């Protein structure tokens, strides 16, 4: 009884807040530069700093027959451009305290910078940023150095059971689709990529119409417009990269076990998931939040970790991309109990697809997502991330304003329906990486 009474105070508090007015997102301003780059901008005058991110549709989905070439290209932008070599570029940013970050995944390749807005810092940062995007030098010396660095990174992946498993999962789920490969490519392909490949990739993809620009910080609209022109004017207008091929559903289940000298087995289940702007986006997003997207309170965590102590981390997620990205479940457990853990993970997924969430589970998930909305937009760096996604995937500018409303509107039936249409437990890819001699794995399909 004491427990009940003590709790009611908190539940009331939650109910009270739950009913409060939905929080609006930041007001996003958007326009196109003269040569066709879409800009998304949110003023943030509180701190004397600005975050700028240029995103190109230049991820590994654009590698073609040169796996790793887009990531390789992106990594060389900072290693010499215009009149400056790699060291001079690094010095230019470091001298004004600006922080540069670049990277490349399957859909996107980006260059971001965070700088103070005082004139000398902003000026040096913009001048350097514009140059590295438009005029990278691709010097043979830097290409060879970067090649060694990528090869070392691939080696380091080979000593991690998690990396080995995730890479294999992508290959098996996406087959011939460009999403199948690892963004860094393979040892063989990285060894054979030439300077001409890199230059051609840059010419083809680092163009204004294939870019979006996100700006958040202490700059007014006029300054933001000037920044956008300055960064994109040196780029040729070009064209947007062509539409990616559709992702085919899996024709059958696949089970793969990879021997690895580790104390744990890493276990993965996967299937093609959903795309950005997917009609099932909200039911799948909220549904997955309940299944394995909400940390310790998710169903998977309850079954695998809380009830049985089988794994430190267990999760499921949809990675929404231009085309349907990965739907993945994963855990790690000592080799001896890999079979049991896999079974619990499979059964939890199967039951969820069949039954969907309970009313209480859905209510709790909505409270968590909508109540936590202010946390999603609490910093310039979070807002910048949203601008990049909204711009890159052509989501509506009121996406954040409508977010909580659309979460609220999701019903149990919609979740059950979306999961049963989109996830087929008979056609999953299963990957195990670990000591196979120590683990008994009664996986789906192995009896055949």
């Amino acid at each position, binding site marked *: 009884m*004491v*427990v009940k009474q*003590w*709790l009611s*105070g*908190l539940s009331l*508090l*939650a109910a009270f*807040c739950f009913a409060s007015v939905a*929080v609006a997102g930041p007001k996003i301003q958007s326009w196109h530069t003269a040569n066709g780059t879409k800009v998304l901008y949110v003023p943030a005058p*509180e*701190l004397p*700093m600005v975050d700028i991110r240029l995103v190109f549709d230049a991820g590994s989905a654009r590698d073609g027959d040169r796996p790793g070439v887009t990531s390789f290209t992106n990594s060389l932008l900072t290693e010499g451009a215009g009149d400056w070599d790699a060291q001079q570029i*690094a010095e230019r*940013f*470091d*001298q*004004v*305290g600006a922080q*540069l970050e670049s990277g490349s995944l399957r859909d996107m390749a980006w260059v971001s910078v965070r*700088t103070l807005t005082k004139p000398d*810092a902003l000026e040096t940062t913009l001048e350097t940023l514009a140059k590295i995007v438009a005029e990278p030098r691709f010097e043979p010396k830097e290409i060879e*150095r970067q090649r060694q*660095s990528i090869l*070392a*990174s691939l080696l*380091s992946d080979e*000593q*991690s*059971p998690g990396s080995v498993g995730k890479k294999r999962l992508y290959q098996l789920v996406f087959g011939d689709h460009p999403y199948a490969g690892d963004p860094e490519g393979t040892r063989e392909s990285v060894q054979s990529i030439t300077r001409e490949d890199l230059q051609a990739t840059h010419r083809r993809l680092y163009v204004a119409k294939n870019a979006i620009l996100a700006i958040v910080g202490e700059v007014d609209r006029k300054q933001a417009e000037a920044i956008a022109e300055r960064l994109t004017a040196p780029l040729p207008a070009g064209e947007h990269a062509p539409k990616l091929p559709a992702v085919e559903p899996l024709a*059958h289940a*696949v089970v793969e*076990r*990879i*021997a*690895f*000298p580790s104390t*744990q087995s890493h276990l993965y289940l996967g299937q093609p998931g959903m795309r950005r702007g997917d009609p099932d986006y909200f039911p799948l997003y909220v549904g997955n939040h309940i299944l394995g997207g909400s940390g*310790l*309170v998710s169903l998977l965590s309850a079954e695998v*970790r809380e009830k*049985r*102590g*089988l*794994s*430190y981390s267990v999760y499921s997620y949809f990675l929404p991309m231009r085309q349907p990205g990965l739907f993945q479940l994963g855990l*790690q*457990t000592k080799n001896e109990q890999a079979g049991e853990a896999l079974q619990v993970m499979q059964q939890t997924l199967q039951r969820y697809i069949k039954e969907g969430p309970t009313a209480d589970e859905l209510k*709790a998930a909505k*409270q*968590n997502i*909508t*109540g*936590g909305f*202010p946390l999603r937009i*609490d*910093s310039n760096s979070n807002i910048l991330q949203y601008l990049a996604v909204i711009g890159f995937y052509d989501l509506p500018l009121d996406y954040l304003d409508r977010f909580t409303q659309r979460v609220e509107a999701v019903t149990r039936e919609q979740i059950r329906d979306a999961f049963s249409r989109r996830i087929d437990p008979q056609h999953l890819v299963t990957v195990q990486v670990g000591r196979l001699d120590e683990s008994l794995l009664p*996986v789906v*399909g192995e009896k*055949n």
Partner: protein
Amino acid sequence: MRSLITSVMLALLALGQVEAGVVEHRLDNGMKVIVKQDTRAPIVVSQVWYKVGSSYEYGGITGVSHVLEHMMFKGTENLEPGEFSRIIAANGGEENAFTGRDYTAYFQTLSNDRLEVSFKLEADRMRHLSLLPEEFLKEVEVVKEERRMRTEDKPTSLTYEQFLTGAYEASPYRIPVIGWMADLDALQVEDLQHWYRKWYAPNNATLVVVGDVDPQQVIALAEKHFGPLKSEPIGELKPRTEPEQRGMKRFTVRAPARQPYLILGFKTPVVGTADEPWEPYALEMLAYVLDGGDSARLTNNLIRGSQLAVSADASYSAFSRLSSLFTLDAIPTPDTPIEKVEEALLQEIERFKQEPVSEQEMERVRNQIIAAKVFEKDSVFYQAMLIGQLETIGLDWRLADDYVENLKQVTPEQIQQVAKKYLVQRNLSVAVLDPLPMEQKLTHQVAGGRHGG
């Protein structure tokens, strides 16, 4: 509820000590409350920091602080196991906890109208934890899986663990935060009960709140929820001072891996243990000169110049409870002998002794730390971390605000002096990961299993 807070608030207006937007207050039971107002977003982060961590442990019970951190989510006299997390989630909150050498901390980030939820729950588990044996038996298995994932199956982590254990003799910084596997195997729920009674009390805790809140209201709420908690006598820690090192030490870790890895560490003092107050800041400057950005010496000389390494880092922190290490680590480029990388790293250290750092490099570092101080204000969580960490290791949170100024005062001559004094061979420990061949992958694939029947 709101009107009640307001009347209490008026009564308390004069109590807190205000400085630079930060209000400090001590409850009668000894708990310290520090509130920093940041009105940029309608959110709040609340962190409870306990002065206990792996450096408080001793042989046989290593990892107990971290296992106890896990058990803090497993029920109290008032809450079922897991209930804590469910209540925070239902209030739109994010939560977690972390254990370090010198602290165990718990945090929630919430919409600013829900801070009381956090206080009520944290106050409850500060004094009323259940520590149910059946929950402990499951959770210690989760922690062992965490150890396997983070350490056993990661050759670089294994090397780092061996490095720390070997570098320190008496200092408890040799103890891995996650604990030795054999100690986790032998851990009993009674060990946790003992540890909880010993360290979890308001007078051994600091509450840090940063966000869009009224500091006086926060203090009133803290009085309401934490005020009634009973304080405990907290035992004195033994000093466990690290004896002077009398020569270089070297360790090899053989583990299945694809690439070698190298760590060097010199015994160095920190704020509070240094002979001169400027020494730790000079060591921080030295680390920035080596590794502050892509134009710094390690990248310029080892990664770009000689191309001996694909990665090279320098690391030092002026702030910890006990004297610590200045470390360097590197991964050689394929086919480069690891000895050559070690030699090159040591040459970089020698250079500090021979020539003063140029004014251009000093200026670069100063600009970087000034900018970083602005950038850190974009995260309320990080701001709370800085305050909590300093307070919990026994320093004043104001040191975070003085940090830039203290670094700016450092001269090239002082950097030279600390290099000559501390970064010397007799203070050095070296650990090398020597890769064992990884077995050939045997892939076993079954396709089409359940398809059609």
